[in-house]
C-alpha cells in the first residue's frame, strides 16, 4: 500500500498577474484516497490540471511510477493511466451518454463506430453508477446536472486507470448520489487505484480520505493522515487563522407572515403551499431534481407557472417577470453564479448596481457618483476581496463572486431574499462569512428562503425546513423537530419508499 504511484516535485505555475503554484511537492500512494483542500483560488485545480496535462508547469517535474513524465494533453495523461474529472463539467451535451462515457476509447473499425458494443459496455458502467434506468443512447444534455456529473464519473470509471483525479465531484450531487460515488471510490481503492479527491466539504474528506493535503495561496501548508487531524485544524491551516463560530445563527423570526404561496404549480412542481415570516430563514431541502430551483425561479418570475397564488403581506400579487419580483422587493441569488448570477465581463461596480439602476437614474442617465458610492460601500460592507470596484467579475474568486451577487440584492434592501445553493463551491472561510451575513439580514427583518443540498447548513441555519420530493412539498419541519433522518425520510420519493416497505 505504501508504494508511490505519482510524485510531483517543486511545481511552479504562473498566470499573467498571479503565481498560482509556488513549488508544490507531493507524493500519491497506490490505493489511497488522497484529499486536497484549500480556499478558493488556493491552486488545487491548477495543480491537478498540471498533473493531467492541461497546463504545463513553469518549473518542476512529475514522476509516474518513478519515471519522469510530462503530458501534453488530458488524452496523453489518460493513455498513461491518469484520468481526471474536472471541476468544470465537461460532458458533451449533444452526444449520447454512451459516447460521453467512452469518448476517446471507442472501439472502431476503419474509423467507424460500433454502436452495439458501445451500448453494451455503457450499460455495465451505468449499472455500477446505479442509474441503469438511463438508456445509453440518451442525449446527455437532457439529463439533470447531477446525472451529468455521474456520467462524468462513469467516464473515469470506464477507464483502466492507476490514478483517478476528482475535482469537486460532489458539488452538484445530493446525498444519494454522493453515497453511490463513495461506494465506487471504495471499490476503486480495493482495486489499488489511487484517487485524488478535491472538495470543499470537509465531512466528505473525513468519510473517505486516507490522507489530506492542505493548500493555501499556491503553497502546501500541511499533510496529515486523516485519523491524525481534526476539522478545526484543517480549517485553520486553510484560512490561515482560527475560524470561530462557523455557523452563526441567533436571529429569530417575527410573527408577521410576509409571504404566502398557495397551490403553486409549474412544470417541475405541483401544489406547493407554504408561508414565510418576517426575519425568518426558511430552508428548502430535497434530493437532486426535487424541483426546488424551478419553484424558486417561478416564484421570481423567471419561469412561467401554471396555477397558484402568491400573497405579499396579505395582498395578492402577480409576478410575471423578475422585474415584477424586484419591484415587490424580492431578490434571488441563483444556483449558478457564473451562468445566472453575474455578468462576468462586467465590472464589480456594474454588477452590483445592475438590478437597481432605476433607483439611481435621472432622466434616463445613471447618476455615476451615486453608482460609485454604492459599489464602494457594498464592497466594504461585505468585505469583497477585489483590487478595485473596476475589476471584472470574471477575475474574482468563487466566494467573492458570490458576495457580489449578494451585494446586488442587498443594495435594493429586499424584504424577501431567495438564496439557491448560496455556498456551492465556496471555501469554508467565505462560507462562514455568508452565514454571518444571512444571520444579520434575518435580524434586520429580511426574510430568507435558502435552497440547499447541504444538510449541515440546512440544519444549522434554518428556522424551519421545507422538504421537497418529486416536485411536491412533503413536509415543513420546525427548528426543534428537524433532524437529518427526518429530512431524508420526507425527501425520499414515495415510489422508493413504497418499494422498500
Amino acid at each position, binding site marked *: 500500500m505504501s508504494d508511490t504511484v505519482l510524485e510531483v516535485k517543486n511545481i511552479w505555475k504562473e498566470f499573467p498577474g498571479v503565481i498560482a503554484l509556488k513549488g508544490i511537492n507531493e507524493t500519491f500512494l497506490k490505493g489511497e484516497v488522497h484529499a486536497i483542500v484549500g480556499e478558493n483560488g488556493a491552486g488545487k485545480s491548477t495543480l491537478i490540471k498540471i498533473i493531467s496535462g492541461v497546463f504545463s508547469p513553469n518549473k518542476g517535474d512529475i514522476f509516474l511510477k518513478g519515471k519522469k513524465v510530462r503530458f501534453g*494533453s488530458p488524452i496523453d495523461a489518460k493513455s498513461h493511466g491518469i484520468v481526471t474529472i474536472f471541476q*468544470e*463539467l*465537461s*460532458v458533451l451535451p*449533444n*452526444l449520447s451518454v454512451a*459516447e460521453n462515457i467512452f*469518448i476517446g476509447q471507442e472501439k472502431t473499425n476503419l474509423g*467507424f463506430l460500433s454502436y452495439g458494443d458501445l451500448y453494451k459496455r455503457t450499460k455495465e458502467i451505468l449499472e455500477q453508477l446505479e442509474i441503469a434506468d438511463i438508456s445509453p443512447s440518451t442525449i446527455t444534455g437532457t439529463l439533470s446536472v447531477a446525472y451529468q456529473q455521474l456520467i462524468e464519473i462513469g467516464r473515469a470509471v470506464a477507464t483502466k486507470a492507476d490514478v483517478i483525479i476528482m475535482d469537486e465531484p460532489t458539488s452538484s450531487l445530493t446525498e444519494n448520489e454522493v453515497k453511490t460515488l463513495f461506494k465506487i471510490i471504495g471499490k476503486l481503492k480495493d482495486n489499488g487505484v489511487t484517487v485524488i479527491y478535491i472538495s470543499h466539504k470537509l465531512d466528505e474528506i473525513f468519510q473517505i480520505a486516507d490522507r489530506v493535503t492542505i493548500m493555501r495561496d499556491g503553497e502546501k501548508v500541511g499533510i496529515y493522515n486523516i485519523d491524525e487531524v481534526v476539522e478545526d485544524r484543517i480549517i485553520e491551516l486553510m484560512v490561515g487563522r482560527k475560524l470561530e463560530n462557523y455557523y452563526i445563527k441567533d436571529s429569530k423570526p417575527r410573527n408577521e407572515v410576509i409571504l404566502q404561496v398557495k397551490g403553486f404549480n409549474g412544470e417541475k412542481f405541483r401544489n406547493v403551499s407554504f408561508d414565510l415570516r418576517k426575519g425568518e430563514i426558511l430552508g428548502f431541502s430535497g434530493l437532486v431534481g426535487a424541483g426546488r430551483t424551478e419553484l424558486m425561479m417561478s416564484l421570481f418570475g423567471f419561469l412561467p407557472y401554471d396555477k397558484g397564488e402568491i400573497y405579499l403581506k396579505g395582498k395578492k400579487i402577480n409576478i410575471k417577470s423578475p422585474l415584477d419580483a424586484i419591484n415587490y422587493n424580492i431578490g434571488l441569488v441563483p444556483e449558478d453564479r457564473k451562468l445566472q448570477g453575474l455578468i462576468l465581463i462586467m465590472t464589480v461596480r456594474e454588477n452590483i448596481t445592475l438590478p437597481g439602476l432605476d433607483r439611481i437614474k435621472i432622466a434616463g442617465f445613471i447618476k455615476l457618483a451615486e453608482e460609485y458610492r454604492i459599489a464602494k460601500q457594498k464592497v466594504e460592507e461585505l468585505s469583497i476581496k477585489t483590487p478595485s470596484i473596476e475589476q471584472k467579475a470574471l477575475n474574482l474568486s468563487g466566494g467573492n463572486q458570490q458576495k457580489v451577487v449578494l451585494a446586488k440584492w442587498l443594495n435594493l434592501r429586499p424584504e424577501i431574499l431567495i438564496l439557491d445553493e448560496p455556498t456551492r463551491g465556496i471555501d469554508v472561510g467565505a462560507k462562514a462569512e455568508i452565514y454571518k451575513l444571512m444571520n444579520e439580514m434575518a435580524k434586520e427583518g429580511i426574510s430568507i428562503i435558502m435552497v440547499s443540498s447541504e444538510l449541515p447548513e440546512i440544519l444549522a441555519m434554518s428556522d424551519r425546513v421545507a422538504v421537497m420530493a418529486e416536485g411536491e412539498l412533503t413536509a415543513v419541519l420546525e427548528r426543534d423537530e428537524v433532524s437529518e433522518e427526518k429530512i431524508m425520510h420526507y425527501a425520499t420519493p414515495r415510489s422508493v419508499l413504497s418499494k422498500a416497505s
Partner: protein
Amino acid sequence: MKRIFQIKEIGILIILLVLMGFLGITTRSFLTSENLLTALLNISFIAIMAFGETMVIITAGIDLSVGSILGISSVVIALLLHDYHMAMVPAILSGLLMGTTMGLVNGFLITKLKLPPFIATMGMLSIGRGLAYVLTGGWPISPFPETFTNIGQGKLFGIPNPVLFMIVLAIIAHIFLKYTVLGRRIYAVGGNLNAARLSGVKVDKILILVYAIAGFLAGISGFLMTAWLGVGQANAGQGYELDVIAAAVIGGTSLMGGEGTILGTILGAAIMGILRNGLILLGVSSFWQQVAIGLVIIFAIAFDRLRGGLRK
C-alpha cells in the same frame, strides 16, 4: 440523438411536401420528372457547398468564404485547362487543392490566430474573390475540351451528373458525420468546446478539418459549375454564401453548434430550390421572388421553433 434529428427533419419535410403539393396543383409542369430533375440540378451546387457548411456550423463556426472559394477553384481549373492545356484530371485536382487550401487557411486563422470564424472567413471571402480577379483579369475563360464539359452536362440513367455528385457526396457526408469517430468529434466540438478539449478531443485538428472539408466541397462545386456552364469566371458563386447558410439552417442546423444533419441540409436546399423554381412556374416576378424567399426562410425557421416548443 437519432430520434430528435428525425423529428426535426420531419418538420422540414412537411414544409417541403406542402410546398410541392401546392405547386403540383397550381402549375402544370411542376410535377414532371424533367422539371424536378432540373430543380435538383439547380440546387446541386448550393447543396454540395452546404454539406461542408453544415459541418462548420455544427462546430459553432461559420464559413462566409465558400462562394469565393467556388469562384477561385473555378478559375484555377479553367486557367489550367484552357491557358496551360493541362490534362483534365490534374487540372481538376489542382482546383480542388486550391479550395482545400483556402479552407485550411480559414482553419489556421481560426485555431492558431484565434480569429472569430465570421471575421476569418469574411477576410478570405474578400481575398479569394480578389485573387480570382487577379488570375483572370476579369475575363471569362473558355472553351474547354468536351471530355471536361461532358462531366458537367452529361447524365447517367437520366440523372444529371451534378445531381449524382450531390447524392454521392451527401451519402458520404452523412455516414461520415453519423458513424465515424471523426464525425462524432465534430458534434462534440460544437456541443461544448472546452468540454471536448478536456475530454481529449483535438479541437484544433477537428476545426481545421471541417474548414478544409468546406473548402474542398466548395472546390467541387466550383469544378462542377465550370464543367456544367463550360466557362470559368472570377465572379462565379458571388453571394452564394447566404444561400448556402440558409440551406443548412433551414435544414435544422443550429448556429449555436452541436446540431445538424446532412439530410436536413438537403431538405433545406430543396426548399430553396423548389421555391425558386416554383415561383417562376407560378409567374411571380423576380422582384417578388426575393421577398418570397425571405419570407420562407423566416417562416421555415419560425415553424420549426414553434413546433419544437420552447426548447432551450
